Every structure is written in structure tokens, then in C-alpha cells.
């Protein structure tokens, strides 16, 4: 569900805008950055803090 909520939040942004997400430790730490990169966004990860620039 973390990626779904992140994906919907990204849809509400304009291209180039940034979304910062703090995910719960565990699966989402891997899944959210991977799914965001697969969707073409630019992703930087600092532990559970994930910064995504919308493509």
C-alpha cells in the first residue's frame, strides 16, 4: 500500500516537482524506490527517507 499511496501522490505533482516520503522499515524500503525508478522517476534514498522527482 505504501507504493500505491506514493504513486497517487506523485500523480498529483507536476513534472519536476519533488515528493519526499518516509516509509516504514521493511519491504517498502526496497519496493518504493524500485517501483519509482521503474516508473521513470529520479530517486535518492537515505535510509527510510526517499526523495522522488516526478518524471
Amino acid at each position: 500500500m505504501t507504493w500505491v499511496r506514493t504513486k497517487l501522490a506523485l500523480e498529483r505533482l507536476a513534472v519536476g516537482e519533488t515528493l519526499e516520503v518516509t516509509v516504514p522499515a521493511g519491504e517498502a524500503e526496497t519496493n518504493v524506490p524500485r517501483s519509482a525508478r521503474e516508473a521513470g522517476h529520479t530517486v535518492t534514498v537515505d535510509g527510510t527517507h526517499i526523495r522522488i522527482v516526478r518524471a
Partner: protein
Amino acid sequence: MSDSSSRRNFFRGAFQSAARAALRPDPEPEEPPEEVVAPLLSEAEIERYSRQLVLPDWTEEAQIRLRDASVLVVGAGALAAPVALYLAGAGVGRIGLVDDDVVEISNLHRQPLHFTPDLGVPKVESAAAKLRFLNPDVIIEPYQVRLDATNALGLVEGQDLVIDCSDSFETRYAVNRACCDAGVDLIEGGAVGWSGLVMTILPRATACYRCAFPVEPEDAQSCAEAGILGPAAGVLGTLQALEALKLLSSTQPPLLDAFLSVDLVSLEFTHVSVHRRGDCSDCAG
């Protein structure tokens, strides 16, 4: 851009309302700005539809388009079961069901919306009860009537999409004519024996059912005559539901100006091209 491709990309429901509102004159300064944005999905909706929302091209807007859609399903039998179940599950906002039959024991092997305790119950009421259990957020409208040429237009007008799950050529032609007259998109389907077909129609933009089949085939058989297995009808109804979700969400293009012919013995799917006929009695002119 062609008529058909431009129609595939249009926004429905709340998005149309937003576009219309944007054309209105500016409100008086003392009035608060008019709310023109469709309500976003609730947390409950995000959770219920999460497995389709996670699809890369299935956006929140696509889900809201489904929520705002009205679909009429003609028939409440073998094809209609997967159609109505998948549309209700996916979150189509309003689903009408048209059928005048009651549940009979010979229906149950291929019509999974009806169970043994439903024998004798109107099919539309039996189906509506199951669909409301599946998704209480969807409005189900049962019409216990037989659709024919005299009432088809009234039932079809105002719908965003009609899905024909009937079992006779007479009904299919009546549905096709009404959808052409009302300008309502249509997904035709049929299954008998070990074969079936699905055809998506954007009236007056793409070939219609009458363009493909100008007259009823002389050797046409019903399921009562030729027989049918439950999964055969299930495959064709599921394909109709898939085409419906593509069309309603505007996420993927449906198959147009063609019908899909399905051979369930060889498991072959064949696209058969169809062109609009200049002399079509339903869609020409």
C-alpha cells in the same frame, strides 16, 4: 487524430463537469470559488482498488472515471455474470441490469451470479443481491423487462456504455440500433458451443454490429440447441469486461473496426477486420 482515437481519449464525468465549469464566467468577487474538481479517492477506495491502482497506467483519474460511469448490461445470464462481477469489483459507479427471466436450474452451470436457492427469483434481483455484497459502493439498477426494439432507446439513452450479453440476434440488433441512435458506446459479445466473439463499437465512428452482420445467419443456434460450457461463456464475458474497463478508464485502446473471434477448442484468438458500411441501416447517414 481520427474520430475514434480522439473519442478514446476523452475525459468523462467529473472531468467533463470541470471542463464545462472552466468555461463559465468568473464568479462575483464575494462568492467563494466554485468547486469543480472531482473528489479524490477516499482511503477506503484506495485500499479496495489498490491492485489496479498500482498498474502504471491506471491513475487516480482513471479510477474516478470508472466511479462516474453508468453502464447498462443487457442480460443477466452467462456472459453478464463475469461482466457485472468484474465491473462492480473494479468500481464502476452505476450498473443497470436488463433481463426478464427468472433463474432456472439449467442456468446454474454457466451463470455464477445465481445459486440454487435463487431458483424462481428474477435474474436481475438475484444478480443485484450478489453485486451489492461484492461492492456496496456501486449502485445496481435492476430492470426486469425484455429489451426489444420498442424500449431499447429509452434504456440505452444516458448511459456511458452498453454491454450486450443477450442471447438472441433480435435483441442484439435492437441494442445496436439503439446505441447508434443514442450515440452510446457498445460492447457486443456472444458465445455458443466452443466459440464466441467480442466486438467494441463507437457508434458512427467505427463499424457497428450491423456492419459486421447485416442479416442474422440462417444457421444460428442458441445455447439450448448447440450447448455451451460455463468456462466458454466465462471467457467471452471476461473479455467484454476487459474491453469495458479499457474504454471507461481511457487507459488502453479497445479493439475497434474488428471483432475478436475466439475458438475455444484450438484456443485461437483471431482479429477479423470490419469496415463501416455506407448502406448500414443502423449507423449510416
